[in-house]
Protein backbone atom coordinates (compact mmCIF):
# COMPACT_ATOMS: atom_id res chain seq x y z
CA UNK A 1 0.00 0.00 0.00
CA UNK A 2 2.75 2.37 0.79
CA UNK A 3 4.74 1.63 -2.31
CA UNK A 4 3.78 4.03 -4.97
CA UNK A 5 5.83 2.61 -7.74
CA UNK A 6 7.75 -0.54 -7.59
CA UNK A 7 9.93 -2.20 -10.07
CA UNK A 8 9.21 -5.61 -8.75
CA UNK A 9 6.32 -5.97 -11.14
CA UNK A 10 8.45 -5.18 -14.15
CA UNK A 11 9.98 -7.98 -16.13
CA UNK A 12 13.72 -8.20 -15.87
CA UNK A 13 15.34 -5.89 -18.36
CA UNK A 14 16.59 -8.00 -21.26
CA UNK A 15 20.21 -7.85 -22.33
CA UNK A 16 19.16 -6.29 -25.60
CA UNK A 17 17.98 -3.12 -23.94
CA UNK A 18 21.20 -2.77 -22.02
CA UNK A 19 23.16 0.28 -23.07
CA UNK A 20 26.11 -1.98 -23.79
CA UNK A 21 24.18 -3.84 -26.43
CA UNK A 22 24.96 -1.80 -29.52
CA UNK A 23 28.70 -1.63 -28.81
CA UNK A 24 28.58 -5.33 -28.12
CA UNK A 25 27.11 -6.03 -31.55
CA UNK A 26 29.83 -3.95 -33.12
CA UNK A 27 32.52 -5.92 -31.35
CA UNK A 28 30.89 -9.17 -32.47
CA UNK A 29 30.65 -7.95 -36.05
CA UNK A 30 34.27 -6.88 -35.96
CA UNK A 31 35.28 -10.31 -34.74
CA UNK A 32 33.28 -11.86 -37.54
CA UNK A 33 34.90 -9.58 -40.10
CA UNK A 34 38.36 -10.47 -38.86
CA UNK A 35 37.44 -14.15 -38.74
CA UNK A 36 36.20 -14.04 -42.32
CA UNK A 37 39.42 -12.30 -43.35
CA UNK A 38 41.48 -14.90 -41.58
CA UNK A 39 39.64 -17.70 -43.28
CA UNK A 40 39.96 -16.18 -46.73
CA UNK A 41 43.49 -14.81 -46.69
CA UNK A 42 46.47 -16.56 -45.15
CA UNK A 43 48.46 -14.32 -42.87
CA UNK A 44 45.54 -12.03 -42.23
CA UNK A 45 45.13 -12.99 -38.62
CA UNK A 46 48.78 -12.54 -37.73
CA UNK A 47 49.53 -10.42 -34.70
CA UNK A 48 51.43 -7.86 -36.74
CA UNK A 49 48.48 -7.27 -39.01
CA UNK A 50 46.38 -6.58 -35.94
CA UNK A 51 49.02 -4.21 -34.62
CA UNK A 52 49.17 -2.56 -38.01
CA UNK A 53 45.48 -1.81 -37.63
CA UNK A 54 46.41 0.26 -34.62
CA UNK A 55 49.58 1.74 -36.06
CA UNK A 56 47.97 2.81 -39.31
CA UNK A 57 44.85 4.16 -37.67
CA UNK A 58 46.38 5.81 -34.63
CA UNK A 59 45.65 9.29 -35.93
CA UNK A 60 42.10 8.33 -36.87
CA UNK A 61 41.55 6.94 -33.41
CA UNK A 62 42.65 10.18 -31.80
CA UNK A 63 40.37 12.19 -34.06
CA UNK A 64 37.49 9.82 -33.42
CA UNK A 65 37.97 10.25 -29.68
CA UNK A 66 37.58 14.01 -30.02
CA UNK A 67 34.69 13.50 -32.40
CA UNK A 68 33.00 11.22 -29.86
CA UNK A 69 32.87 14.05 -27.37
CA UNK A 70 31.43 16.39 -29.94
CA UNK A 71 28.84 13.91 -31.15
CA UNK A 72 27.89 12.91 -27.62
CA UNK A 73 27.13 16.55 -26.95
CA UNK A 74 24.82 16.58 -29.95
CA UNK A 75 27.18 18.46 -32.25
CA UNK A 76 29.46 17.56 -35.10
CA UNK A 77 32.93 18.68 -36.13
CA UNK A 78 33.74 18.62 -39.82
CA UNK A 79 36.95 20.57 -39.46
CA UNK A 80 39.09 17.81 -37.94
CA UNK A 81 40.64 16.56 -41.17
CA UNK A 82 41.69 20.05 -42.16
CA UNK A 83 42.98 20.88 -38.70
CA UNK A 84 45.05 17.73 -38.91
CA UNK A 85 46.49 18.88 -42.20
CA UNK A 86 47.09 22.35 -40.80
CA UNK A 87 48.96 20.86 -37.86
CA UNK A 88 51.25 18.84 -40.10
CA UNK A 89 51.87 21.99 -42.04
CA UNK A 90 52.61 24.07 -38.95
CA UNK A 91 54.93 21.41 -37.57
CA UNK A 92 56.77 21.00 -40.83
CA UNK A 93 57.08 24.70 -41.46
CA UNK A 94 58.31 25.59 -38.00
CA UNK A 95 60.75 22.71 -37.93
CA UNK A 96 62.13 23.21 -41.41
CA UNK A 97 62.08 26.97 -41.72
CA UNK A 98 62.50 28.28 -38.22
CA UNK A 99 64.26 25.23 -36.78
CA UNK A 100 62.40 25.49 -33.51
CA UNK A 101 62.88 22.70 -30.98
CA UNK A 102 60.49 19.85 -31.75
CA UNK A 103 58.75 19.79 -28.37
CA UNK A 104 58.01 23.49 -28.61
CA UNK A 105 56.67 22.96 -32.10
CA UNK A 106 54.39 20.20 -30.90
CA UNK A 107 53.20 22.38 -28.05
CA UNK A 108 52.42 25.25 -30.38
CA UNK A 109 50.64 22.98 -32.83
CA UNK A 110 48.47 21.48 -30.13
CA UNK A 111 47.65 24.92 -28.78
CA UNK A 112 46.69 26.16 -32.23
CA UNK A 113 44.39 23.17 -32.71
CA UNK A 114 42.74 23.66 -29.34
CA UNK A 115 42.30 27.37 -29.92
CA UNK A 116 40.86 26.78 -33.34
CA UNK A 117 38.34 24.37 -31.84
CA UNK A 118 37.55 26.69 -28.97
CA UNK A 119 36.90 29.53 -31.38
CA UNK A 120 34.45 27.40 -33.31
CA UNK A 121 32.84 26.24 -30.09
CA UNK A 122 32.43 29.82 -28.96
CA UNK A 123 30.78 30.77 -32.25
CA UNK A 124 28.49 27.78 -32.02
CA UNK A 125 27.45 28.56 -28.51
CA UNK A 126 27.36 32.32 -28.33
CA UNK A 127 25.90 32.97 -31.75
CA UNK A 128 23.70 29.87 -31.63
CA UNK A 129 25.04 28.77 -35.01
CA UNK A 130 24.78 25.27 -36.39
CA UNK A 131 27.82 23.16 -35.57
CA UNK A 132 27.64 21.62 -39.01
CA UNK A 133 28.02 24.96 -40.74
CA UNK A 134 30.54 26.52 -38.40
CA UNK A 135 32.82 23.51 -38.59
CA UNK A 136 32.29 23.26 -42.33
CA UNK A 137 33.54 26.81 -42.68
CA UNK A 138 36.30 25.88 -40.23
CA UNK A 139 37.20 23.04 -42.53
CA UNK A 140 37.60 25.40 -45.49
CA UNK A 141 39.51 27.86 -43.38
CA UNK A 142 42.03 25.37 -41.99
CA UNK A 143 42.64 23.89 -45.43
CA UNK A 144 43.03 27.34 -46.88
CA UNK A 145 45.52 28.29 -44.17
CA UNK A 146 47.61 25.26 -45.14
CA UNK A 147 47.99 26.64 -48.63
CA UNK A 148 48.82 30.04 -47.29
CA UNK A 149 51.74 28.49 -45.41
CA UNK A 150 52.86 26.64 -48.49
CA UNK A 151 51.24 24.87 -51.37
CA UNK A 152 54.09 22.43 -51.57
CA UNK A 153 54.51 19.54 -49.26
CA UNK A 154 57.28 20.05 -46.74
CA UNK A 155 59.42 17.14 -45.69
CA UNK A 156 60.27 16.96 -42.01
CA UNK A 157 63.88 16.10 -41.29
CA UNK A 158 63.97 16.92 -37.62
CA UNK A 159 65.79 14.08 -35.85
CA UNK A 160 63.25 13.86 -33.05
CA UNK A 161 60.37 13.41 -35.45
CA UNK A 162 62.38 11.01 -37.57
CA UNK A 163 63.30 8.98 -34.51
CA UNK A 164 59.70 8.79 -33.35
CA UNK A 165 58.64 7.88 -36.83
CA UNK A 166 61.00 4.97 -37.03
CA UNK A 167 60.92 3.68 -33.50
CA UNK A 168 59.34 0.30 -33.22
CA UNK A 169 58.42 -0.87 -29.79
CA UNK A 170 58.81 -4.64 -29.88
CA UNK A 171 56.09 -6.83 -28.45
CA UNK A 172 57.11 -10.45 -28.89
CA UNK A 173 58.40 -10.64 -32.41
CA UNK A 174 55.98 -7.98 -33.54
CA UNK A 175 56.11 -4.27 -32.94
CA UNK A 176 53.94 -1.27 -32.31
CA UNK A 177 54.62 2.39 -32.95
CA UNK A 178 54.84 5.15 -30.35
CA UNK A 179 52.00 6.87 -32.19
CA UNK A 180 49.70 3.94 -31.58
CA UNK A 181 50.58 4.01 -27.89
CA UNK A 182 49.87 7.72 -27.67
CA UNK A 183 46.52 7.13 -29.33
CA UNK A 184 45.63 4.39 -26.87
CA UNK A 185 46.62 6.56 -23.94
CA UNK A 186 44.46 9.35 -25.33
CA UNK A 187 41.58 6.91 -25.58
CA UNK A 188 41.97 5.78 -21.99
CA UNK A 189 42.13 9.33 -20.70
CA UNK A 190 39.08 10.26 -22.74
CA UNK A 191 37.14 7.29 -21.39
CA UNK A 192 38.03 8.36 -17.88
CA UNK A 193 37.03 11.94 -18.55
CA UNK A 194 33.75 10.96 -20.15
CA UNK A 195 32.64 8.61 -17.44
CA UNK A 196 34.26 9.76 -14.25
CA UNK A 197 34.42 13.52 -14.34
CA UNK A 198 31.71 16.16 -14.09
CA UNK A 199 32.91 17.61 -17.39
CA UNK A 200 32.31 14.29 -19.09
CA UNK A 201 28.88 13.91 -17.60
CA UNK A 202 27.97 17.45 -18.58
CA UNK A 203 28.71 16.45 -22.17
CA UNK A 204 26.17 13.66 -21.93
CA UNK A 205 23.67 15.96 -20.30
CA UNK A 206 24.01 18.55 -23.04
CA UNK A 207 23.63 15.82 -25.62
CA UNK A 208 20.51 14.57 -23.87
CA UNK A 209 18.83 17.94 -23.68
CA UNK A 210 20.76 21.15 -23.83
CA UNK A 211 17.90 23.25 -22.54
CA UNK A 212 17.50 21.00 -19.52
CA UNK A 213 21.21 20.99 -18.88
CA UNK A 214 21.06 24.75 -18.76
CA UNK A 215 18.04 24.71 -16.46
CA UNK A 216 19.78 22.22 -14.20
CA UNK A 217 22.49 24.75 -13.73
CA UNK A 218 25.28 23.12 -15.66
CA UNK A 219 27.93 25.30 -17.22
CA UNK A 220 26.75 24.73 -20.73
CA UNK A 221 28.73 27.52 -22.34
CA UNK A 222 32.04 26.50 -20.83
CA UNK A 223 31.43 22.84 -21.54
CA UNK A 224 30.53 23.39 -25.15
CA UNK A 225 33.52 25.57 -25.86
CA UNK A 226 35.71 23.01 -24.13
CA UNK A 227 34.24 20.15 -26.15
CA UNK A 228 35.17 21.77 -29.43
CA UNK A 229 38.50 22.82 -28.02
CA UNK A 230 39.11 19.21 -27.06
CA UNK A 231 38.12 18.06 -30.52
CA UNK A 232 40.46 20.62 -32.04
CA UNK A 233 43.17 19.47 -29.66
CA UNK A 234 42.61 15.85 -30.66
CA UNK A 235 42.72 16.81 -34.32
CA UNK A 236 46.00 18.60 -33.70
CA UNK A 237 47.37 15.66 -31.73
CA UNK A 238 46.32 13.44 -34.59
CA UNK A 239 48.16 15.87 -36.84
CA UNK A 240 51.29 15.45 -34.77
CA UNK A 241 50.95 11.67 -34.95
CA UNK A 242 50.37 12.03 -38.65
CA UNK A 243 53.57 14.05 -38.91
CA UNK A 244 55.41 11.24 -37.17
CA UNK A 245 53.76 8.81 -39.51
CA UNK A 246 54.34 10.69 -42.75
CA UNK A 247 57.24 12.97 -41.87
CA UNK A 248 55.77 15.70 -43.97
CA UNK A 249 53.43 18.62 -43.86
CA UNK A 250 50.98 18.97 -46.69
CA UNK A 251 47.77 20.81 -47.40
CA UNK A 252 46.21 17.82 -49.08
CA UNK A 253 46.77 15.46 -46.17
CA UNK A 254 43.88 13.59 -44.63
CA UNK A 255 41.14 14.69 -47.00
CA UNK A 256 37.78 13.33 -45.95
CA UNK A 257 39.08 12.10 -42.62
CA UNK A 258 36.22 13.85 -40.87
CA UNK A 259 33.76 11.50 -42.51
CA UNK A 260 35.87 8.49 -41.54
CA UNK A 261 35.90 9.71 -37.98
CA UNK A 262 32.16 10.30 -37.92
CA UNK A 263 31.56 6.89 -39.43
CA UNK A 264 33.87 5.29 -36.87
CA UNK A 265 32.10 6.96 -33.98
CA UNK A 266 28.69 6.00 -35.25
CA UNK A 267 29.69 2.43 -36.01
CA UNK A 268 31.06 2.33 -32.50
CA UNK A 269 27.52 2.73 -31.27
CA UNK A 270 27.25 6.45 -30.55
CA UNK A 271 24.06 8.16 -31.61
CA UNK A 272 24.59 11.17 -33.85
CA UNK A 273 21.72 12.91 -32.16
CA UNK A 274 23.80 13.02 -29.02
CA UNK A 275 23.64 11.76 -25.49
CA UNK A 276 23.96 8.05 -26.07
CA UNK A 277 27.12 6.05 -26.58
CA UNK A 278 30.57 5.28 -25.28
CA UNK A 279 33.90 6.85 -26.08
CA UNK A 280 35.37 3.35 -26.23
CA UNK A 281 33.12 2.80 -29.23
CA UNK A 282 35.53 5.00 -31.18
CA UNK A 283 38.12 2.24 -30.97
CA UNK A 284 35.80 -0.44 -32.31
CA UNK A 285 34.61 1.88 -35.02
CA UNK A 286 38.13 2.73 -36.11
CA UNK A 287 39.13 -0.92 -36.07
CA UNK A 288 36.14 -1.83 -38.19
CA UNK A 289 37.06 0.75 -40.82
CA UNK A 290 40.70 -0.34 -40.68
CA UNK A 291 39.76 -3.99 -40.97
CA UNK A 292 37.65 -3.28 -44.04
CA UNK A 293 40.57 -1.54 -45.71
CA UNK A 294 43.03 -4.26 -44.76
CA UNK A 295 40.65 -6.87 -46.07
CA UNK A 296 40.46 -5.08 -49.39
CA UNK A 297 44.25 -4.72 -49.58
CA UNK A 298 44.68 -8.42 -48.82
CA UNK A 299 42.20 -9.33 -51.49
CA UNK A 300 44.09 -7.24 -54.00
CA UNK A 301 41.82 -7.88 -56.96
CA UNK A 302 39.31 -5.10 -56.59
CA UNK A 303 39.24 -2.24 -59.03
CA UNK A 304 39.07 1.24 -57.66
CA UNK A 305 35.32 1.43 -58.03
CA UNK A 306 34.78 -1.96 -56.52
CA UNK A 307 36.76 -0.80 -53.52
CA UNK A 308 34.29 2.02 -53.00
CA UNK A 309 31.30 -0.21 -53.54
CA UNK A 310 32.59 -2.83 -51.13
CA UNK A 311 33.31 -0.23 -48.46
CA UNK A 312 29.81 1.12 -48.92
CA UNK A 313 28.32 -2.36 -48.75
CA UNK A 314 30.21 -3.26 -45.58
CA UNK A 315 29.16 0.02 -43.99
CA UNK A 316 25.62 -0.81 -44.95
CA UNK A 317 25.78 -4.28 -43.45
CA UNK A 318 27.23 -2.89 -40.25
CA UNK A 319 24.64 -0.22 -39.84
CA UNK A 320 21.74 -2.45 -40.73
CA UNK A 321 22.72 -5.38 -38.55
CA UNK A 322 23.38 -3.04 -35.67
CA UNK A 323 20.11 -1.29 -36.17
CA UNK A 324 18.01 -4.42 -36.62
CA UNK A 325 19.52 -6.06 -33.58
CA UNK A 326 18.85 -3.03 -31.40
CA UNK A 327 15.35 -2.70 -32.75
CA UNK A 328 14.69 -6.30 -31.90
CA UNK A 329 16.13 -5.63 -28.52
CA UNK A 330 13.97 -2.78 -27.42
CA UNK A 331 11.15 -2.63 -29.84
CA UNK A 332 8.80 -0.01 -28.65
Amino acid at each position, binding site marked *: MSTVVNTSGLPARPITSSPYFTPLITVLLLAMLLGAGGAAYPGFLSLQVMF*NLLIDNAFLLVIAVGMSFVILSGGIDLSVGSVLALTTMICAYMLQTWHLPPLLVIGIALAVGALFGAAMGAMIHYFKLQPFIVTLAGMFLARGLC*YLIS*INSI*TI*EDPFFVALSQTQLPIGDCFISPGALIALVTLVIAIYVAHCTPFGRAIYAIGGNEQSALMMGLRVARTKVLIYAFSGFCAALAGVLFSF*YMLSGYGLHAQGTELDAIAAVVIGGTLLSGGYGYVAGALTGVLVLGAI*QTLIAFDGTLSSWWTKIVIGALLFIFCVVQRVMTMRGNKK
Partner: protein
Amino acid sequence: AKPLVIGFSQVGAESEWRTANTVSIKDAAKKEGITLKFADAQQKQESQVKAIRSFIAQRVDVIAFSPVVESGWDTVLREAKRANIPVILTDRAVNVSDPSLYVSFLGSDFVEEGRRAGRWLVERQKKTPDAVLNIVELQGTVGSAPALDRKKGFEEVIAGNSKLKMLRSQTGDFTRAKGKEVMEAFLKAEGKKINVLYAHNDDMAIGAIQAIEEAGLKPGKDILVISIDGVKGAFEAMIAGKLNVTVECNPLLGPQLMQIARDVAAGKPVPKRVVTQESVFPAEVAAKEFPNRKY
Protein backbone atom coordinates in the same frame (compact mmCIF):
# COMPACT_ATOMS: atom_id res chain seq x y z
CA ALA B 1 58.06 -21.87 -60.18
CA LYS B 2 55.69 -19.83 -58.12
CA PRO B 3 54.39 -16.83 -60.05
CA LEU B 4 55.84 -13.47 -59.14
CA VAL B 5 53.62 -11.48 -56.76
CA ILE B 6 53.53 -7.71 -57.07
CA GLY B 7 51.68 -5.48 -54.66
CA PHE B 8 50.59 -2.30 -56.38
CA SER B 9 49.12 0.66 -54.58
CA GLN B 10 47.32 2.99 -56.93
CA VAL B 11 46.45 6.59 -56.08
CA GLY B 12 42.82 6.21 -57.01
CA ALA B 13 40.63 6.51 -60.04
CA GLU B 14 40.33 10.25 -60.13
CA SER B 15 40.82 10.70 -63.85
CA GLU B 16 40.70 8.92 -67.16
CA TRP B 17 44.44 9.07 -67.24
CA ARG B 18 44.63 7.19 -63.98
CA THR B 19 42.16 4.59 -65.16
CA ALA B 20 44.21 3.98 -68.27
CA ASN B 21 47.24 3.64 -66.04
CA THR B 22 45.49 1.03 -63.88
CA VAL B 23 44.21 -0.90 -66.85
CA SER B 24 47.65 -0.96 -68.42
CA ILE B 25 49.23 -2.34 -65.28
CA LYS B 26 46.54 -4.95 -64.73
CA ASP B 27 46.66 -6.10 -68.35
CA ALA B 28 50.42 -6.30 -68.39
CA ALA B 29 50.44 -8.37 -65.21
CA LYS B 30 47.90 -10.76 -66.61
CA LYS B 31 49.76 -11.14 -69.84
CA GLU B 32 52.99 -11.89 -68.03
CA GLY B 33 51.41 -14.32 -65.62
CA ILE B 34 52.27 -12.16 -62.65
CA THR B 35 49.98 -12.14 -59.63
CA LEU B 36 48.98 -8.55 -58.97
CA LYS B 37 47.74 -7.39 -55.59
CA PHE B 38 45.99 -4.15 -56.36
CA ALA B 39 44.89 -1.61 -53.80
CA ASP B 40 43.17 1.70 -54.45
CA ALA B 41 44.08 4.46 -52.03
CA GLN B 42 41.28 6.84 -53.01
CA GLN B 43 43.70 9.75 -53.14
CA LYS B 44 44.83 9.29 -49.57
CA GLN B 45 48.43 8.90 -48.62
CA GLU B 46 47.58 7.18 -45.38
CA SER B 47 45.63 4.55 -47.31
CA GLN B 48 48.66 3.93 -49.45
CA VAL B 49 50.81 3.45 -46.40
CA LYS B 50 48.26 1.01 -45.03
CA ALA B 51 48.22 -0.89 -48.30
CA ILE B 52 52.01 -1.09 -48.39
CA ARG B 53 52.05 -2.34 -44.81
CA SER B 54 49.59 -5.04 -45.71
CA PHE B 55 51.71 -5.98 -48.73
CA ILE B 56 54.66 -6.37 -46.41
CA ALA B 57 52.55 -8.49 -44.10
CA GLN B 58 51.60 -10.63 -47.07
CA ARG B 59 55.23 -10.94 -48.11
CA VAL B 60 54.78 -10.04 -51.75
CA ASP B 61 57.86 -10.23 -53.99
CA VAL B 62 57.84 -6.66 -55.23
CA ILE B 63 55.97 -3.56 -54.12
CA ALA B 64 55.15 -0.85 -56.62
CA PHE B 65 53.16 2.29 -56.07
CA SER B 66 52.27 5.69 -57.46
CA PRO B 67 52.78 7.98 -54.50
CA VAL B 68 50.02 10.49 -53.85
CA VAL B 69 52.57 12.86 -52.36
CA GLU B 70 56.32 13.12 -52.61
CA SER B 71 57.17 13.25 -48.95
CA GLY B 72 56.51 11.06 -46.01
CA TRP B 73 57.58 7.65 -47.23
CA ASP B 74 60.69 6.99 -45.19
CA THR B 75 59.19 4.93 -42.42
CA VAL B 76 57.12 2.52 -44.38
CA LEU B 77 59.78 2.06 -47.06
CA ARG B 78 62.25 1.22 -44.33
CA GLU B 79 59.88 -1.46 -43.15
CA ALA B 80 59.75 -2.83 -46.67
CA LYS B 81 63.50 -2.79 -46.89
CA ARG B 82 63.81 -4.61 -43.60
CA ALA B 83 61.46 -7.24 -44.98
CA ASN B 84 63.67 -7.44 -48.07
CA ILE B 85 60.97 -6.41 -50.47
CA PRO B 86 62.16 -4.19 -53.32
CA VAL B 87 60.09 -1.13 -54.10
CA ILE B 88 59.43 0.43 -57.50
CA LEU B 89 57.88 3.85 -57.87
CA THR B 90 55.67 4.65 -60.80
CA ASP B 91 54.44 7.91 -62.19
CA ARG B 92 55.54 10.18 -59.35
CA ALA B 93 58.77 10.41 -57.41
CA VAL B 94 59.27 10.36 -53.66
CA ASN B 95 61.47 12.43 -51.48
CA VAL B 96 63.36 10.13 -49.12
CA SER B 97 66.54 10.56 -47.15
CA ASP B 98 67.98 7.28 -48.33
CA PRO B 99 67.67 6.64 -52.07
CA SER B 100 68.31 2.94 -51.57
CA LEU B 101 64.81 2.67 -50.17
CA TYR B 102 63.51 2.16 -53.68
CA VAL B 103 65.16 0.41 -56.57
CA SER B 104 63.72 2.28 -59.47
CA PHE B 105 61.43 5.09 -60.47
CA LEU B 106 59.45 4.73 -63.63
CA GLY B 107 57.43 7.66 -64.82
CA SER B 108 57.05 10.95 -66.50
CA ASP B 109 58.62 14.22 -65.57
CA PHE B 110 55.94 16.78 -64.88
CA VAL B 111 58.30 19.71 -64.96
CA GLU B 112 59.48 18.60 -68.33
CA GLU B 113 55.89 18.39 -69.52
CA GLY B 114 55.36 21.96 -68.46
CA ARG B 115 58.55 22.96 -70.27
CA ARG B 116 57.42 21.24 -73.43
CA ALA B 117 54.15 23.08 -73.35
CA GLY B 118 56.07 26.29 -72.84
CA ARG B 119 58.48 25.56 -75.64
CA TRP B 120 55.68 24.92 -78.06
CA LEU B 121 54.23 28.29 -77.20
CA VAL B 122 57.57 30.03 -77.57
CA GLU B 123 57.93 28.47 -81.03
CA ARG B 124 54.42 29.47 -81.91
CA GLN B 125 55.00 33.01 -80.76
CA LYS B 126 57.76 33.35 -83.26
CA LYS B 127 55.15 33.21 -86.02
CA THR B 128 53.74 36.50 -84.82
CA PRO B 129 56.85 38.16 -83.48
CA ASP B 130 55.28 41.51 -82.72
CA ALA B 131 52.13 40.52 -80.96
CA VAL B 132 52.02 40.15 -77.21
CA LEU B 133 50.29 36.93 -76.24
CA ASN B 134 48.21 37.07 -73.09
CA ILE B 135 48.01 33.75 -71.34
CA VAL B 136 45.51 32.37 -68.89
CA GLU B 137 46.35 29.25 -66.96
CA LEU B 138 44.07 26.57 -65.54
CA GLN B 139 45.93 24.89 -62.74
CA GLY B 140 45.33 21.45 -61.42
CA THR B 141 44.31 20.73 -57.84
CA VAL B 142 45.98 23.24 -55.55
CA GLY B 143 49.14 21.81 -54.09
CA SER B 144 49.21 18.60 -56.12
CA ALA B 145 52.54 17.61 -57.64
CA PRO B 146 51.52 17.69 -61.31
CA ALA B 147 49.93 21.10 -60.84
CA LEU B 148 52.99 22.53 -59.14
CA ASP B 149 55.47 21.02 -61.58
CA ARG B 150 53.57 21.78 -64.75
CA LYS B 151 53.23 25.36 -63.65
CA LYS B 152 56.90 25.52 -62.76
CA GLY B 153 58.14 24.05 -66.04
CA PHE B 154 55.93 26.28 -68.11
CA GLU B 155 56.88 29.43 -66.25
CA GLU B 156 60.55 28.54 -66.52
CA VAL B 157 60.39 28.52 -70.30
CA ILE B 158 58.26 31.59 -70.87
CA ALA B 159 60.00 33.61 -68.17
CA GLY B 160 62.51 35.29 -70.43
CA ASN B 161 60.01 36.14 -73.13
CA SER B 162 58.57 39.61 -72.85
CA LYS B 163 55.93 38.88 -75.45
CA LEU B 164 54.33 36.18 -73.33
CA LYS B 165 52.34 37.53 -70.47
CA MET B 166 50.49 35.56 -67.83
CA LEU B 167 47.17 37.29 -67.20
CA ARG B 168 45.32 34.99 -64.83
CA SER B 169 45.96 31.73 -63.14
CA GLN B 170 43.29 29.85 -61.22
CA THR B 171 42.64 26.27 -60.24
CA GLY B 172 40.24 24.17 -62.24
CA ASP B 173 40.71 21.10 -60.05
CA PHE B 174 41.61 18.98 -63.08
CA THR B 175 37.92 18.63 -63.98
CA ARG B 176 35.89 19.58 -67.02
CA ALA B 177 33.15 21.33 -65.11
CA LYS B 178 35.53 23.51 -63.13
CA GLY B 179 37.64 24.18 -66.19
CA LYS B 180 34.61 25.47 -67.98
CA GLU B 181 33.40 27.52 -65.04
CA VAL B 182 36.73 29.21 -64.44
CA MET B 183 37.23 29.89 -68.12
CA GLU B 184 33.84 31.56 -68.26
CA ALA B 185 34.93 33.85 -65.47
CA PHE B 186 38.23 34.58 -67.22
CA LEU B 187 36.44 35.45 -70.40
CA LYS B 188 34.06 37.78 -68.64
CA ALA B 189 36.86 39.49 -66.75
CA GLU B 190 39.44 39.75 -69.52
CA GLY B 191 37.30 39.47 -72.61
CA LYS B 192 39.10 39.47 -75.92
CA LYS B 193 42.46 40.12 -74.32
CA ILE B 194 43.07 36.43 -73.86
CA ASN B 195 45.21 34.88 -76.58
CA VAL B 196 46.39 31.64 -75.05
CA LEU B 197 45.00 29.09 -72.67
CA TYR B 198 47.34 26.75 -70.89
CA ALA B 199 45.53 23.96 -69.07
CA HIS B 200 47.27 21.51 -66.80
CA ASN B 201 45.27 18.64 -68.20
CA ASP B 202 43.07 17.80 -71.15
CA ASP B 203 39.86 17.64 -69.19
CA MET B 204 40.07 21.24 -68.05
CA ALA B 205 41.02 22.24 -71.59
CA ILE B 206 37.96 20.47 -73.00
CA GLY B 207 35.71 22.23 -70.51
CA ALA B 208 37.34 25.55 -71.25
CA ILE B 209 36.96 25.04 -75.00
CA GLN B 210 33.20 24.82 -74.49
CA ALA B 211 33.25 28.04 -72.51
CA ILE B 212 35.20 29.75 -75.27
CA GLU B 213 32.74 28.57 -77.89
CA GLU B 214 29.77 29.67 -75.84
CA ALA B 215 31.36 33.09 -75.54
CA GLY B 216 31.27 33.31 -79.29
CA LEU B 217 35.00 32.86 -79.84
CA LYS B 218 36.85 30.19 -81.76
CA PRO B 219 39.07 27.99 -79.63
CA GLY B 220 42.26 27.10 -81.42
CA LYS B 221 42.09 30.27 -83.48
CA ASP B 222 41.00 33.24 -81.41
CA ILE B 223 42.50 31.61 -78.38
CA LEU B 224 45.32 29.10 -78.64
CA VAL B 225 44.74 26.10 -76.41
CA ILE B 226 47.61 24.12 -74.93
CA SER B 227 47.10 21.18 -72.65
CA ILE B 228 48.79 18.15 -71.19
CA ASP B 229 48.03 14.41 -71.06
CA GLY B 230 47.01 13.42 -74.56
CA VAL B 231 43.80 11.54 -73.86
CA LYS B 232 41.41 10.59 -76.63
CA GLY B 233 39.15 13.56 -76.03
CA ALA B 234 42.07 15.87 -76.68
CA PHE B 235 42.74 14.22 -80.02
CA GLU B 236 39.14 14.62 -81.02
CA ALA B 237 39.31 18.28 -80.11
CA MET B 238 42.49 18.67 -82.12
CA ILE B 239 40.90 17.01 -85.13
CA ALA B 240 38.04 19.45 -84.83
CA GLY B 241 40.59 22.24 -84.74
CA LYS B 242 39.72 23.42 -81.25
CA LEU B 243 42.85 22.39 -79.44
CA ASN B 244 46.30 23.33 -80.69
CA VAL B 245 48.59 20.97 -78.90
CA THR B 246 48.66 18.38 -76.18
CA VAL B 247 51.80 17.26 -74.41
CA GLU B 248 51.70 13.56 -73.87
CA CYS B 249 51.87 12.13 -70.41
CA ASN B 250 51.90 8.44 -70.95
CA PRO B 251 49.90 6.32 -68.53
CA LEU B 252 50.71 3.01 -70.20
CA LEU B 253 53.39 2.02 -67.74
CA GLY B 254 52.29 -1.59 -67.34
CA PRO B 255 54.69 -3.45 -69.62
CA GLN B 256 57.68 -1.43 -68.50
CA LEU B 257 56.78 -1.92 -64.87
CA MET B 258 56.45 -5.68 -65.24
CA GLN B 259 59.80 -5.83 -66.94
CA ILE B 260 61.53 -3.94 -64.17
CA ALA B 261 59.78 -6.03 -61.55
CA ARG B 262 60.98 -9.25 -63.16
CA ASP B 263 64.51 -7.94 -63.37
CA VAL B 264 64.48 -6.83 -59.77
CA ALA B 265 63.13 -10.17 -58.59
CA ALA B 266 65.76 -11.98 -60.61
CA GLY B 267 68.42 -9.86 -58.96
CA LYS B 268 69.41 -8.10 -62.15
CA PRO B 269 70.50 -4.48 -61.86
CA VAL B 270 67.92 -1.94 -62.99
CA PRO B 271 68.30 1.75 -63.75
CA LYS B 272 67.32 4.07 -60.94
CA ARG B 273 65.27 6.28 -63.25
CA VAL B 274 63.24 5.13 -66.20
CA VAL B 275 61.53 7.89 -68.10
CA THR B 276 58.46 6.92 -70.03
CA GLN B 277 58.40 7.46 -73.74
CA GLU B 278 56.44 10.59 -74.38
CA SER B 279 55.98 13.11 -77.11
CA VAL B 280 54.20 16.29 -78.01
CA PHE B 281 51.21 16.09 -80.31
CA PRO B 282 50.35 19.26 -82.15
CA ALA B 283 46.99 19.44 -83.92
CA GLU B 284 48.60 18.74 -87.30
CA VAL B 285 49.39 15.15 -86.42
CA ALA B 286 46.24 14.47 -84.49
CA ALA B 287 44.24 12.82 -87.23
CA LYS B 288 47.09 10.49 -88.03
CA GLU B 289 47.75 9.59 -84.40
CA PHE B 290 44.15 9.21 -83.34
CA PRO B 291 43.67 5.57 -84.38
CA ASN B 292 46.75 4.59 -82.32
CA ARG B 293 45.49 6.04 -79.10
CA LYS B 294 44.63 3.50 -76.47
CA TYR B 295 43.15 5.81 -73.84
